[in-house]
């Protein structure tokens, strides 16, 4: 407890302070301080508590629920107000319902429930804290310069940086809370704050599109919150359980409990943008990039899967387990398929986030040790790589003025640094020795062992498709576009610091994954499941993977002397004999000189967003309903 307070309080203080700042200098100072503080504190915290599970009981602080309720009232009030004034009544209704329910429950029903360990920080919470602290901190650090440039490039938007940073830190504080609380009502409170922050940041630019998308996100998240609340209320009233630890001890044969679990899981699914709720995450991409990075890929959406991991012991081979796993599987495939037809880098990232979250959800809900291992590994790798990718896309946008993948050809020529980071980030997402693939490997093993053939097939197809869209992006970056002009590299120190640290983390975490596995994940699984368990990737394979990694970094170095020794004759590219001589254009028809343009394939005819979205939603809904009907009532 003692040290948890600094983490949250520190973030809150920064959030408060930065709200009233006006000048770039002040922002720079406070945000840097805040970021550094968050990073350092979370690491210190993790190191200090590495070997013990921190628990804390709030039973002596009964009063705490009143300020919490008051704050929730405030939030609800705000949401209802915004909803009504923008004619988004659904939001208002959901929010009101939710608040009414939780208030009724807490004020009248909660008394007879005892919560043991309101705060319970085990290995996985620790891991989440590290991710939130380090990755989140780096993102905050990055955003200082980014936001400056952002407003420089977009003079049409009102400069509300104070507000922006403030929400960012508020969110960080909420996230810390979210992963620490064992008590579901308190967790729900943090959950709401994250939804609200997301809403505020998506609507940051106040354009119509932004506001609309913000509301879409809010509707979905509040709906998720509502489901969560209902789940909590059911659990509380039926089983007198309000914390995850006790929840785990419940039998998973009880229909009512399982219904509640399913509802909570739905909360998780909304937050992690699973089908059919994924639409909001795409809309969220209108927000400034750092907020997309932190909220919509690295941390907030992870809250959803975190929740499902917490629920995992009750899932598995039962109706909610299958449903959630299936939803995850479908989302995995849907996200991957949709990413093919996108050319906006952020959209690709968004779809790929959706897709990866799907895989995590699937793994988490299988409730086998290997699957859990894979899920947690995926969270780690994904958080780092995606944060890196988002930030790099942000920088790229500022360097070349566009985040269209097609305009990234020859990015290597423009900025070595940015493209290196981009390459590492992309490689981290799918190429062999890198992290995501390791986890996928474990996931595959888990899927086979648990006999989930359908999902296995989905994974086989989904992974393939994933590879397609990443590779073509990668191809664009490294394409030597014969681009002689070099744009000045305008990367600032903060940007560089966070980009490089994240890149390094991608590599280090990947090479060091056996350690993470050994010291964090395996103990967690052993504790939780009470079984003896070791990493699903056997040591020989790990060695080979690390060897591949080394080779990947050493080979280029070997080639350097070879290059100096063997000078190839440069040659122009083949253009059927019509080259004008500069490799950039050819003599075209009508006597004109055409410049070479190469566009990747998007197959928009096949991978139509609307079509697939409705199909995937329909499948998910039908399967969900069937399994609920089948699982609960038959």
């Amino acid at each position, binding site marked *: 407890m003692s040290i948890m307070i600094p983490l949250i309080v520190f973030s809150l203080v920064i959030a408060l302070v930065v709200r009233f700042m006006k000048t770039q200098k002040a922002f720079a100072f406070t945000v840097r301080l805040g970021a550094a503080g968050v990073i350092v504190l979370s690491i210190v915290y993790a190191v200090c508590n590495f070997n013990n599970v921190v628990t804390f009981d709030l039973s002596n602080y009964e009063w705490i629920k009143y300020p919490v309720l008051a704050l929730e009232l405030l939030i609800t009030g705000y949401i209802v107000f915004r909803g009504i004034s923008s004619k988004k009544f659904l939001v208002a209704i959901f929010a009101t319902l939710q608040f009414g329910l939780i208030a009724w429950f807490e004020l009248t029903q909660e008394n007879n429930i005892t919560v043991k360990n309101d705060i319970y920080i085990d290995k996985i919470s620790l891991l989440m804290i590290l991710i939130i602290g380090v990755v989140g901190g780096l993102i905050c650090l990055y955003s200082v310069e980014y936001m400056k440039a952002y407003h420089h490039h977009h003079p049409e938007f009102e400069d509300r940086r104070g507000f922006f940073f403030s929400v960012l830190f508020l969110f960080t504080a909420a996230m810390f809370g979210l992963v620490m609380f064992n008590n579901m009502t308190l967790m729900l409170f943090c959950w709401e704050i994250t939804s609200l922050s997301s809403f505020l940041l998506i609507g940051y630019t106040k354009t119509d599109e932004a506001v609309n998308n913000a509301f879409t996100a809010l509707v979905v998240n509040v709906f998720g919150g509502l489901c969560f609340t209902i789940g909590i209320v059911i659990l509380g009233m039926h089983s007198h359980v309000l914390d995850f630890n006790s929840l785990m001890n419940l039998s998973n044969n009880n229909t009512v409990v399982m219904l509640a679990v399913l509802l909570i899981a739905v909360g998780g699914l909304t937050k992690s943008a699973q089908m059919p709720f994924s639409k909001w995450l795409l809309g969220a991409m209108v927000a400034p990039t750092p907020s997309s990075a932190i909220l919509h890929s690295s941390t907030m959406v992870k809250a959803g899967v975190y929740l499902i991991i917490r629920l995992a012991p009750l899932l598995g081979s039962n109706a909610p387990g299958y449903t959630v796993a299936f939803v995850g599987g479908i989302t995995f495939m849907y996200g991957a398929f949709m990413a093919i037809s996108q050319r906006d880098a952020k959209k690709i990232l968004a779809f790929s986030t959706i897709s990866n979250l799907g895989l995590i959800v699937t793994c988490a809900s299988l409730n086998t040790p290997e699957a859990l291992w894979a899920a947690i590994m995926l969270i780690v790798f994904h958080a780092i790589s995606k944060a890196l990718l988002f930030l790099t896309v942000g920088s790229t946008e500022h360097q070349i003025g566009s985040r269209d993948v097609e305009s990234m050809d020859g990015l290597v020529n423009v900025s070595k640094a940015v493209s290196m980071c981009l390459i590492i980030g992309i490689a981290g997402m799918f190429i062999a020795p890198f992290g995501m693939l390791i986890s996928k490997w474990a996931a595959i093993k888990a899927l086979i062992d648990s006999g989930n053939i359908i999902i296995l097939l989905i994974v086989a197809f989904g992974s393939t498709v994933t590879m397609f869209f990443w590779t073509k992006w990668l191809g664009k970056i490294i394409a030597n576009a014969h681009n002689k002009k070099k744009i000045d590299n305008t990367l600032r120190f903060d940007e560089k610091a966070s980009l490089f640290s994240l890149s390094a983390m991608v590599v280090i975490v990947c090479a060091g994954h056996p350690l993470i596995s050994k010291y964090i994940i395996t103990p967690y699984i052993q504790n939780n499941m009470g079984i003896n368990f070791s990493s699903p990737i056997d040591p020989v394979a790990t060695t080979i993977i690390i060897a591949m990694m080394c080779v990947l970094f050493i080979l280029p170095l070997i080639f350097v002397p070879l290059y100096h020794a063997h000078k190839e004759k440069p*040659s122009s590219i083949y253009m059927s*004999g019509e080259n004008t001589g500069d490799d950039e254009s050819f003599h075209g028809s009508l006597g004109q000189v055409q410049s070479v343009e190469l566009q990747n394939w998007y197959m928009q005819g096949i991978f139509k967003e609307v079509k697939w979205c409705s199909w995937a939603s329909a499948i998910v809904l039908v399967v969900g309903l069937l399994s609920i009907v089948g699982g609960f009532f038959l």
Partner: protein
Amino acid sequence: MNMIKKSPWILHYDGSSCNGCDIEVLACLTPLYDVERFGIINTGNPKHADILLITVSVNEQNIPVVKQLYDQMPNPKAVVAVGICAATGGIFKECYNVMGGIDKVIPVDVYVPGCAARPESIIEGVVKALGVLESKRKANEE
């Protein structure tokens, strides 16, 4: 061991000629003449080719094309001019849009006569070109 004689890949360009020689070049690839016996492949890509089989008399427009194709071929390379069009412009040499033989643009190593050149003559020309390639390679090495 030098392999260029055992695997000469050809590029075929057909400029301002009638198709006579062109189809005879193609005929060389077909079962009756089957130049793949000698490892000859019609690559269709200057960057892979060793021998440029050219059946054109050039006009203004073809000049840069032919030059470029020739430049893009890696050394050692040889040029075989097939048909009298490619040699001198043949029957078209008095046309206003014909510049004459291909040697106006790039150096030619072997000329194959005939209008149209017979596949046998073309094979003969290619075989001669192999000798040229060989000596060019030697010259390169020195």
